[in-house]
């Protein structure tokens, strides 16, 4: 054994004792105990990632997470009642609503009765008991396993959701998944969602992450997705957490043959956030579109880090991320496309664009292409600047005030990432697009 005991930060020490307590309480199944142990040992070996760890260079989690909040327990009756009111105030997108409170699935607040045929929803805590195939899925990809946030999520794996779409099912509307943090003492929320889209099925899901303002709660969530052969999944995400929150989210997706995966994240919330997207093509002739719009003000920090793994030939990926930064905000985009030696005829295009609305914000961009095949079309680009003064002048010359002219141009800028989202069979994502555009306009109006 190594004789040197690493120096732990206060946050790391709390996480270590939280794990010890969880372990002492026992796991619902031996397989869960193993998953937790794997995640924990990864965390124990490296601690919280810091700026000398390459992937965390711009988001020094060790410095930004000064303390770890106590792990949230299952919500009690009064917490659920308060959450019900809060959830009721969030306009519905799409059809059936699924609600998680403090990381625990709440059937009471969900539309369990109106799930379309072919959609099966189970709490993760129940699904992992006696279903080894589900447990096996939860291990995650190699890239996710090596990741500190995902490892921590595994260490505290307790509940969440398993959503199974039966082969050939066309869900016909978007599942509206709300992940809400209850008010009160700040805690660490941990949740895992697994979405299995069967062969030839098509489904849409939108996650909305919300929580109270003025409290520095912490949330570390992971969404694992398996898009079966010939299937389509359209996935939207709205990160509108409370202003003091820390939000870590990992998306780990496997895209099968002839499949289509489209994901769009709108980030406006949290003090510090990081959205990680690990996407892999595991079957040929598939298409993935990863996109995001991030709007930050004050001293907000948001990081988008993606890894697009072209592991098989004949796939097409498009990555488009837009940042709109005001005040002293800090945006980060790290994007890596890997084209494996076998992945001939890969088409991969990545673009990161930033608009600065003030002198103060900072943006770090790190695009990378790692191409090991020779017959591919790949590229990346990145732009960063203020709004075009000529366009601003034209609008103002028509009497449109400065703030409104900015809002029109910012909306146009963001719209590009949003407007063709969900080109697939699910016309119903229209509602999501509209809601996102409305959020963007509200955000711009709030500046004035």
């Amino acid at each position, binding site marked *: 054994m190594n004789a040197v005991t690493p120096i732990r930060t206060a946050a790391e020490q709390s996480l270590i004792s939280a794990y010890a307590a969880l372990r002492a309480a026992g796991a619902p199944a031996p397989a869960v105990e193993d998953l937790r142990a794997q995640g924990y040992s990864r965390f124990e070996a490296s601690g919280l990632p810091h700026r000398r760890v390459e992937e965390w260079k711009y988001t020094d989690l060790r410095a930004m997470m000064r303390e770890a909040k106590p792990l949230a327990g299952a919500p009690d009756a009064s917490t659920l009642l308060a959450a019900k009111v809060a959830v009721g105030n969030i306009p519905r997108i799409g059809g059936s609503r699924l609600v998680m409170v403090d990381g625990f699935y709440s059937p009471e607040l969900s539309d369990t009765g109106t799930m379309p045929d072919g959609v099966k929803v189970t709490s993760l805590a129940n699904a992992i008991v006696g279903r080894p195939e589900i447990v096996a899925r939860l291990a995650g990809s190699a890239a996710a396993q090596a990741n500190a946030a995902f490892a921590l999520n595994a260490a505290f794996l307790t509940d969440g959701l398993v959503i199974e779409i039966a082969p050939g099912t066309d869900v016909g509307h978007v599942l509206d998944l709300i992940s809400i943090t209850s008010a009160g003492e700040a805690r660490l929320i941990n949740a895992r969602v697994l979405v299995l889209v069967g062969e030839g099925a098509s489904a849409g899901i939108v996650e909305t992450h919300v929580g109270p303002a003025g409290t520095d709660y912490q949330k570390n969530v992971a969404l694992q997705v398996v898009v079966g052969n010939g299937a389509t999944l359209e996935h939207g995400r709205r990160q509108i957490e409370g202003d003091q929150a820390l939000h870590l989210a990992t998306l780990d997706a496997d895209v099968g043959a002839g499949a289509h995966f489209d994901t769009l994240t709108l980030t406006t919330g949290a003090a510090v956030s990081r959205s990680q997207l690990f996407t892999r093509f595991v079957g040929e002739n598939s298409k993935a579109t990863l996109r995001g719009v991030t709007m930050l003000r004050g001293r907000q920090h948001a990081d988008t880090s993606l890894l697009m793994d072209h592991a098989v030939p004949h796939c097409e990926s498009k990555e488009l991320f837009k940042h709109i930064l005001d005040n002293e905000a800090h945006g980060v985009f790290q994007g890596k496309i890997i084209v494996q030696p076998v992945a001939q005829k890969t088409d991969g295009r990545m673009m990161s664009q930033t608009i600065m609305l003030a002198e103060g914000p900072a943006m770090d961009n790190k695009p990378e292409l790692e191409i090991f095949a020779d017959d591919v079309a790949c590229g990346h680009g990145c732009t960063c600047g203020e709004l075009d003064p*000529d366009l601003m002048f*034209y609008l*103002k*010359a*028509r*009497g449109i*005030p400065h703030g409104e002219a900015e809002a*029109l*141009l910012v909306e146009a800028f963001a719209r590009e990432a949003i407007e063709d989202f969900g080109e697939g069979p699910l016309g119903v994502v229209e509602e999501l697009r509209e809601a996102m555009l409305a959020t963007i306009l509200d955000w711009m109006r709030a500046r004035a």
Partner: protein
Amino acid sequence: MSLLEIKNLTAKLADEDKQILNGLNLTVEKGQVAAIMGPNGSGKSTLSYVLAGREDYDVTDGEALLDGENILELAPDERAAKGLFLAFQYPIEIPGVGQMTFLKAAINAQRKKNGLGEISTPEFIKLVNGKAKELGISQDMLRRSVNVGFSGGEKKRNEILQMSLLAPKLAILDETDSGLDIDALKIVADGVNAMRSPDRAFVVITHYQRLLDYIRPDVVHVMAGGQIVKSGGPELALELEANGYADIVGKAA
């Protein structure tokens, strides 16, 4: 009181030591159509931009009074709200901003300044469709982003559409005739003529007599070297058409 009174207007490029307007004086009366002609590079567009408030230029001396008020300290949108309109020589494309969204924002900004509520959607659509039809602007063009994919002539017509919707006190048309085919020229001129009124004035910048056959000017000014060097009646334009600028510009230099 004159509608526009420019006194000793002196302006330079903001980020370069190049002076373009050199103590320019010009008065435009209410109800007037004033033509400005002059060689390429004489500063006609610069004058129009400086009046509209483009940031690329610094005014180093002089004033420009619109209805007696110096507008040079105002932001571009405030000048527009006071009734100034510039039809650009080169209208700008704004990808992603829909033509209708843009027109509505402009109309509502004006209504707000006048203490009116937002225009209702049916009223707005009726208003735009009516004017667009008169100017030969198709529904397809109204559905696109501002000026995106418009031909040169279509962009110019679009400027006139905006002018007629905003009904300004003073409209400056910078080479609105260039790029227009013969029929479009007639349509645009009809649009302008229909708006002529005793309290409104037009400054028409052009290189060609032909536009002035349709929009009859009351006065013609000649600009050279960043100044108005000669003013006269409509016959001055004919004279220039026949003899060019050599005489006048030579004399001024």
